[in-house]
């Protein structure tokens, strides 16, 4: 079921491009945001040529291997890819629904809301070190981390599972036959 939906969507190259762009932007954001101050100072420097800036930008992505455990690196990449797939599927679904003139405005708004929520969600994820750290300090429950069996990696796994669920739901909707229900 999922394979047929994905085949239908990715038969059109634009959805492949959308998936790649969203996944790459997501992974870049997740990897580079901790060093955004450094990156901004380098990028905005008037004395450095753009070739050097680009080389530094690319080399910073190496933190995936040094700043993450293998487990964390795996689910971070998975999350980025799944988000890219989700955005493509959602886009395909909305476009098709409009073409068939069978989507009500509520569904369109929900779809757009889902996309915006996804972006906001990733935004929160990327600045998690600020928001969550502050929240946990405020609540005084930072110690809770030491009692989690995977020291918090559970959140990442949950993220993969939820995005997987969203992908499944979208595939199911895309596969909905255009027939009258019994």
């Amino acid at each position, binding site marked *: 079921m999922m394979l047929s939906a994905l085949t239908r969507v990715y038969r059109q190259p634009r959805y492949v491009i959308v998936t790649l762009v969203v996944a790459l932007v997501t992974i870049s954001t*997740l990897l580079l945001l901790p060093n955004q101050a450094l990156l901004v100072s380098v990028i905005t420097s008037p*004395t450095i040529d753009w070739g050097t800036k680009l080389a530094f930008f690319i080399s910073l992505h190496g933190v995936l291997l040094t700043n993450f455990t293998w487990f*964390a690196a795996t689910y971070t990449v998975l999350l980025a890819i799944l988000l890219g797939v989700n955005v493509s599927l959602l886009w395909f679904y909305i476009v098709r629904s409009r073409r068939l003139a069978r989507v009500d405005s509520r569904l369109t708004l929900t779809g757009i809301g889902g996309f915006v929520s996804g972006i906001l969600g990733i935004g929160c*994820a990327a600045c998690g070190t600020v928001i969550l750290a502050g929240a946990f300090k405020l609540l005084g429950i930072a110690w809770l981390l030491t009692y989690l069996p995977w020291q*918090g990696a559970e*959140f990442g796994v949950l993220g993969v599972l939820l995005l997987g669920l969203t992908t499944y739901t979208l595939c199911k909707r895309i596969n909905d036959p255009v027939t009258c229900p019994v």
Partner: protein
Amino acid sequence: MNEQPTQTPAQPVIALAPEQSIWKDLLIPASIVIAGIAIGGGLYFSGGGSSAGTPGLAAVETTVERVERLAKDAGVSTRALNTCLESGDSKALVQADVDNAVETGGRGTPWSIVIGPGGQTYPINGALPAAAISQLLEIVRAEGEVPVDPNASPDINTDAVAPVTDGDWVRGDRNATITIVEYSDVDCPFCSRFHDSMKQVMAANDDVLWVYRHFPLDQLHPQARFVAEAAECVGSLEGQDAFWSFIDAYFVG
């Protein structure tokens, strides 16, 4: 005889659309939002930060034994080490490093600040690979004495980094044009990786001074502060080489 179904203009929307409720529609955005929060939690707690277990009593004993063994390898007897630790001097030195790390904006480990020839500073958050550090050094050299503003984030105050003194543990030439001040936690696996990166950087660059300061994250690594204090003792008793020998060996495991 007319068997063609007749539909009002509004009917196709209702009849053709799959059966769904507002709750089903909300499933997708709600899942994405929850996934986003989960990603943030995961990255904060494991990916972008440090990870370590909670050592029990056995781990505490092992750490003490290991510290004594490594100190002995560096030329410090267990008795001398214990006397130094009991004096409390190393405790104050480690705390001074921690205070400075926090003052400069350090929120996790490894936290480093690169100081360029003109005194300009560049914050490094986390374990950068050797290639990225080398690339940054190229930029620092190219900028020379041109002042830049690295404080793009209000939480970062790299100018507050305590001046390098004779009391600091350093590798490289003290007159080097570029200084990298690292605030590190000996039990943080990412600090261990950064330590390896820095060794490669030091081997390839002779214009860099590497300053090692302590930043034990007590909540995550309860033994790190003790090890840092022991390292201070080893250094104060036997000098720079002994300190680095101890730290290198501890990171190797």
